């Protein structure tokens, strides 16, 4: 009785509509993304096999085959920038997870003013990287910075935060830890709060102490959250540019020259865009390979 008939539309026509309906919603963003991403990426792949320098591009952009890649792989500076980037990625993420887990465990108690504490801790994460870099540069100043002043007051010697090749990378790591530990903590806290309660009650009844509970229960149950947070931090640290650029600009003696800074130097200081494109592609391949490994680990942890 209540059947709604639409005589003007035949059944196959309606099925067709139903099949293409999703694309009405999804197509616009994908078309835009393809235009603004695939096109540039294709272009830079093309560029990476050509010579484009500021001096010569008016005369044409000659095909040079693999020359840019050969040059790249035989450049010790490139390898050193990779090593520096990975050192930074591993150490920064390690400290952020240790401290972030600590913070998350602290915040997981039933506390007064929890919201207030959480929002204060989150502030560094919202800050403009440029301001962060410059503020820390001010704090790190060797002669007049307040860090060295208070270190001296406590009886320690001044530290060459940014001017010593041995220390500079650690300073960059310190700033990144200050900047993003709260992000890790927040993600881990969200994970902790979504854990089921029964296993923990069972562990308490069985007499497990808190270290055992943490190692054998909390950590494995948090596996997926940890992996997702790890993936985000990996993506974010691997590309680091702003803070390094403003703290040290890659110096001293290239001790903090990450891959992004390396590409920037070749692309926008010597304007060797073919070479910079080749380096970019190597960077993309490494990033996607790492992300692929992580994504598979996340996928596997879902089925556990």
């Amino acid at each position, binding site marked *: 009785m209540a059947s709604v008939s639409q005589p003007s539309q035949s059944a196959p026509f309606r099925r067709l509509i139903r099949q293409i309906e999703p694309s009405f919603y999804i197509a616009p*963003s994908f078309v835009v993304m393809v235009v603004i991403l695939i096109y540039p990426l294709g272009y830079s792949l093309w560029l990476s096999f050509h010579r484009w320098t500021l001096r010569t591009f008016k005369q044409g952009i000659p095909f040079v085959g693999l020359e840019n890649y050969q040059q790249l792989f035989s450049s010790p500076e490139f390898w050193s920038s990779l090593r520096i980037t990975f050192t930074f990625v591993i150490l920064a993420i390690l400290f952020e997870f240790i401290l972030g887990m600590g913070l998350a465990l602290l915040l997981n108690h039933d506390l007064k003013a929890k919201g207030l504490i959480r929002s204060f801790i989150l502030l560094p994460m919202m800050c403009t990287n440029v301001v962060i870099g410059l503020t820390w540069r001010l*704090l790190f100043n060797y002669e007049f910075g307040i860090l060295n002043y208070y270190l001296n007051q406590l009886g320690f010697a001044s530290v060459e935060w940014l001017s010593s090749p041995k220390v500079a990378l650690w300073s960059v790591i310190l700033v990144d830890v200050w900047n993003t530990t709260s992000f890790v903590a927040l993600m881990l806290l969200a994970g902790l709060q979504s854990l089921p309660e029964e296993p923990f009650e069972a562990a308490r009844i069985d007499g497990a102490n808190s270290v055992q509970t943490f190692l054998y229960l909390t950590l494995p149950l948090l596996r997926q959250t940890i992996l997702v947070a790890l993936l985000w931090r990996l993506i974010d640290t691997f590309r680091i540019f702003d803070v390094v650029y403003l703290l040290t600009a890659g110096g001293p003696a290239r001790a903090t020259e990450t891959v992004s800074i390396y590409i920037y130097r070749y692309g926008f200081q010597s304007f060797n865009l073919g070479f910079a494109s080749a380096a970019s592609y190597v960077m993309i391949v490494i990033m996607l390979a790492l992300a692929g490994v992580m994504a598979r680990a996340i996928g596997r942890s879902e089925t556990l």
Partner: protein
Amino acid sequence: MSPYRLLRYLSRLGIYMLLILAVILSLAPLVYLFLTSFKEPNLTFSLPPVWIFKPTLQNYREVLAGGQFEKYFVNSLVVALSTTAIALSLGGLAAYGFSRFRFRGAFWLRMSALIPQMLPPITIIVPLYVLFNGLRLLDTRWALIISYLTFTIPLALWMMIGFFDDVPIELEEAAMIDGCTRLGALVRVSLPLVAPGLAATAILAFLYCWNEFLYAVILTGREARTLPVTITSFMTNKAILWGRIAASGSMVLVPVLAFALLAQRYLVRGLSRGAIK
């Protein structure tokens, strides 16, 4: 007091102390920057550091002199707002599509939208620079809006899928039975329900654009420059003008931080979403 309760009390005290330490460490550099912005330039590097001084607005006056800063402030605002609006409409629509329809290839399509977020910006800037140069778009707001869409559309898409998933499909079906079209049901029923999610996504997208530096420093010059680039212009060849850096830095930070504090309930929800997804 029994020993057990004393222990409990002490451990709570310890927790609060550690958290207060974390808060102090998080805020101290920002407070220091803020204080520096009100110091006479010759006090910036006075030793021992002065914490109590007669505040001056001199740095702010110097930054604002000439009217350039206001112009770049407008640039920052226009770029961030337009990018957020475009990304939210496109990404939100796509998220709705992924959340409401099951179709072949949906999973892979959804996964492929993550790839743009993994690409390091420096790798996209090189070709974008050449392309914008050819299109005469260098040093325009459009160059920045287009580049920022590369990361804000995927962000909006992924965040909004989760928020749409939270809205029961039955509500829309009920509206459709009552005679709404699907689009009508989306606008009248679902959109109001995902408004908090939309707000969280918008705030995050805005923050990313507002804070962005690498694209801005390469793709813009005198005209379309944004605030983060403007701050670095106070590092001249001769000297680093710390007073002006602190003043302009505070002007960039304070509005967003204040806003982030007010809207933190939404922000936290949006940020922690990714963790449990």
